[in-house]
């Protein structure tokens, strides 16, 4: 006689473990008064170039550090170390995204109380990072002018989970006939109301606006902690 199959209700979020860890990280960041910004984009959009500029300009005002994720090599960390802020490389091996546990491990040995701002640069990938909460306050999605204006429509999930969009390599916009209006429309279509910045890490164009925006957010977090 064969056994009768029956259904038992379970109801369990598959990423529960990651979500719980991310929640715990967020609590620790808040308690220490650290504002956390993550960067996601496809490979080659210019996350590291933007980050290098941001670290150099923000380090005078805030106590800042960065974690950078890649499958292999510590080239990015070495490059960012030039900005003279604490930087740690997370090498994921074959994993195509960062998870909360990797962030938690990378933070070991750092005292959060000594920080006010932490950047987390995700692995270059517009698909997988969208499902993983890292405990960040702000998720920035980057799109370079050389990638095409329809990228948000091709990867709606990651754009939808991000809070802010940054269009990079604006110095090349004219050469590649970048249609800024179309890019903005597509971003708004997948994430209505999203704030968009246009920058060039190379020339510095638009960097002030982005810096100002982040400054306001960081100040709010740090002042809440001070109270």
């Amino acid at each position, binding site marked *: *006689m064969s*056994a*009768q*199959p*029956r*259904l*038992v*209700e*379970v*109801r*369990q*979020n*598959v*990423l529960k*473990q990651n979500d719980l860890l991310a929640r715990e990280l967020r609590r620790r960041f808040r308690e220490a008064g650290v504002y956390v910004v993550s960067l996601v984009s496809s490979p080659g959009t210019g996350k590291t170039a933007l980050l290098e500029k941001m670290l150099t300009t923000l380090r005078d005002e805030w106590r800042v550090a960065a974690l950078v994720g890649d499958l292999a090599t510590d080239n990015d960390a070495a490059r960012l170390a030039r900005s003279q802020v604490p930087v740690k490389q997370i090498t994921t091996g074959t*994993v*195509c*995204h960062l998870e909360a546990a990797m962030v938690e491990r990378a933070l070991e040995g750092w005292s959060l109380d000594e920080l006010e701002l932490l950047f987390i640069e995700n692995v270059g990938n517009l*698909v*997988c990072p*969208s*499902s*993983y909460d890292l405990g960040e306050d702000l998720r920035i999605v980057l799109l370079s002018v050389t990638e095409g204006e329809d990228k948000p*429509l091709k990867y*709606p*999930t*990651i754009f*939808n*989970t991000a809070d802010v969009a940054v269009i990079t390599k604006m110095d090349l916009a004219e050469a590649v006939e970048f249609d800024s209006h179309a890019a903005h429309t597509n971003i*708004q*279509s*997948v*994430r*209505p*109301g*999203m704030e968009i910045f246009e920058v060039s890490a190379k020339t510095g164009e638009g960097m002030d606006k982005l810096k100002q925006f982040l400054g306001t957010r960081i100040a709010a977090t740090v002042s809440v902690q001070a109270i």
Partner: protein
Amino acid sequence: MHELSIAMSMVEMAAEEAARRGVKVSAIHLKLGGFAGVVKDALLFSYEVACQGTTLEGSRLVIEEVPVAVYCPTCESETTLASIQRLCCSACGALTSQIVRGRELEVVALEIEEEAEVECEV
């Protein structure tokens, strides 16, 4: 492709549950939202791979797709998106970012078979 690690954690979770209850799992029922960031076909493929060599080998993955639904503050209605490339109210067309459903990645039920000796007692 993160579907393999997702499949592996599902299999692990189901195997633990099965061992705890002393049963065999013949299927996992999963709710998958359109905005979960997981590709159905890739997950189905990964599931088979993840099951190999475990107590779930030969089991099925039953996926219930959950369309993305949004709330529209303009006309105060809840509608299902026609496309995840355009977050707008299907009733009035206004853009809205208030997602009410569609991020699910949740195991809702396990289909189990009682072990033979339990059957005999009945």
